[in-house]
């Protein structure tokens, strides 16, 4: 077990900078997820921690030791790959014990470790099978088993669930979380799936264009995104962004969406945004759950307005509604009994206590 530290880590491929100076501190026992769209540098970062890619600049430390020039096998890490990467000619037990056998562990110890990992992952009856006789989920369990038996300082996961179908993915996600609760090994996990990131991580690192956009707990990222990228990447359906301006009307700060639509800001928000120049082009960021059907008595900071729905998506426990506001498509979440119908008008309420205000040009959340 160990902490992992990245200091100004850069990866250059010829002229292209895939990773542009990353600083990251991962504490012992922590489960950190690197998330971002493809090509954001998250996999490259993981592979640099593994030692599979050289770093062009900066330092990587595992357990306090700089490992920049340490080969992968001496870093005491284990990695689980997207395509499992099981050795096809070996049985499950041989796959799991390969690393230990190379290090010439005593046979009895190898057996007990493999048995324990197999029990933990519920693959005891599979240990004598070859990988081709296993399903995708079972193969991924074996790949995890191979990592666990080594009892390494750090687990590295490179999109381990991407090849599984949706149902199995949810199941394996829980499985990974359970394993981490048991072994408590420091884990760095790469995914492009924000749901996986949110559900698994102690802390999430959102990456974009080779840089870290924001580091935080899942809740911090969801409720206090730092940039438009994070705000739109985390959460599904994504946050709505509606062009707007701030305006002083009758001594109160308002947000103006259209010529006809303005909403007064609740006092806390008004105080926070008082210093924003009124001429700035802004975006009003609203999560779908903060646009709901209007109730007879509106809470403070909740404002009602009318909209004509374009599309409704009944999800069972809620109905997603889509309507157009000043050229932007907006998504809201209403009660299934709210009477939302395709093409029909509906009185909606927007909860401005949970609004975000972004600078349209810089993308920074104000």
């Amino acid at each position, binding site marked *: 077990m160990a902490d992992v530290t990245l200091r100004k880590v850069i990866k250059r491929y010829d002229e292209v900078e895939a990773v542009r100076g990353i600083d990251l501190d991962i504490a012992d026992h922590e489960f950190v997820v690197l998330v971002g769209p493809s090509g954001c540098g998250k996999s490259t970062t993981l592979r640099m921690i*593994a*030692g*599979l890619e050289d770093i062009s600049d900066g330092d990587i430390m595992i357990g306090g030791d700089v490992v920049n020039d340490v*080969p*992968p*096998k001496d870093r005491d*890490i*284990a*990695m689980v*790959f*997207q*395509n*499992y*990467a*099981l*050795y*096809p*000619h070996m049985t499950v037990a041989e796959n799991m014990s*390969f*690393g230990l056998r*190379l*290090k010439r562990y005593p046979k009895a110890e190898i057996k007990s470790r493999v048995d324990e990992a197999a029990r933990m992952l519920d693959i005891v009856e599979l240990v004598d099978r*070859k*990988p*081709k*006789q*296993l399903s*995708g989920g079972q*193969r991924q369990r074996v790949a995890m088993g*191979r990592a666990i038996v*080594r009892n390494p300082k750090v687990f590295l996961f490179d999109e381990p669930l991407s*090849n599984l179908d949706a149902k199995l993915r949810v199941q394996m996600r829980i499985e990974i979380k359970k394993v981490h609760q048991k072994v408590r090994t420091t884990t760095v996990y790469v995914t492009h799936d924000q749901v996986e990131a949110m559900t698994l991580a102690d802390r999430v690192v959102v990456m974009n264009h080779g840089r870290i956009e924001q580091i935080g707990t899942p809740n911090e990222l969801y409720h206090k995104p730092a940039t438009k990228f994070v705000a739109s990447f985390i959460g599904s359906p994504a946050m709505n962004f509606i062009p707007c301006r701030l305006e002083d009307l009758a001594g109160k700060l308002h947000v103006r969406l259209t010529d006809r639509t303005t909403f007064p800001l609740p006092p806390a928000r008004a105080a926070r945004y008082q210093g924003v120049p009124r001429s700035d082009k802004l975006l009003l960021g609203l999560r779908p759950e903060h646009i709901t059907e209007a109730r007879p008595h509106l809470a403070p900071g909740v404002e009602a307005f009318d909209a004509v729905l374009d599309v409704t998506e009944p999800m069972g426990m809620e109905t997603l509604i889509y309507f157009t506001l000043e050229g932007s498509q907006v998504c809201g979440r209403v009660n299934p009994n709210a009477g939302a119908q395709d093409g029909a008008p509906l009185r909606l309420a927007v909860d401005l206590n949970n609004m975000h205000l972004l600078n349209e040009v810089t993308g920074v959340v104000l």
Partner: protein
Amino acid sequence: MASTVVIDKGAPTRKVKYGSMSRDRAWALRWSYFFLIVFAIFSLVPPLYMLITSLKSSAEISAATNPWWVFHPTLSNYIELLTSNQFLTFFWNSAWVSIVVVTITMLISVPAAFALSRMRFWGSATLATGVFLTYLIPDTLLFLPLFKMFAAFGDWTGIPLINRWYVLLIVYPTLTVPFCTWIMIGYFASIPKELDEAAIIDGASWFQTLTRIFIPVAMPGLIAATIFAFTVSWAQFLYPLVFTTSTDQLVLPVGIITTLIKGDVFNWGQIMTGALLGAAPPLIIYAFLMDYYIAGLTAGATKG
């Protein structure tokens, strides 16, 4: 009522579509069988003729009877050849040369292919192409310069290479190593990159990755390369004809031609028998290794 109409409408369209598909497939099957039969006849007639002739006496061969039928079958050709020391010497020379050449080839081309396909070093791609290009140079262009080189080497060091069977151990790998390296590069390249990365993280050295992961996983390719190297060394004709002349140094293909054709007298019965016996070892090896050759061992390594 309405549902009946739907079924009536749906059924014929589906039938027509399905029918046309299976008709196409049936035609494809017929054509492939036609060409397979033509090809089989084309390649099986010469060995059949060899077999027929090998069972005839010299008198029957030269008699004006139906050449496709044996009227008085005899094993005399086989007995004579298998009891002649000369033929057995050719056979053993061939076997020795082939086995040693296969070993040398594999010892060189497997690590070479591994290095060229996996260790990205400066110029590795160019080198890989270069290896293949060497294979494209025909041996008919090379035997004269090679002869001069070997003769000069003999004069210079006093170690005779010309007219020694072991000169073939130096010459044959120039044919087998490039091609086998090329085959193995292809096989190694088909092994997912993550497999060696997993091995490296598990603590394997390059050598362990090669011996414990790559060689077992690429076994079909390895066997294909082995078969190729064996066939080339067993059947090679030009080089042994040029480099060896004494009967005790000859390998089978050259031995049969030079000892069984005396001037303008062709001992057809024994030539055919010798050729048939000479063709047997590669056939036996093919038969044994075919299962491995076809089996894909990479199944299950990664997704799919």
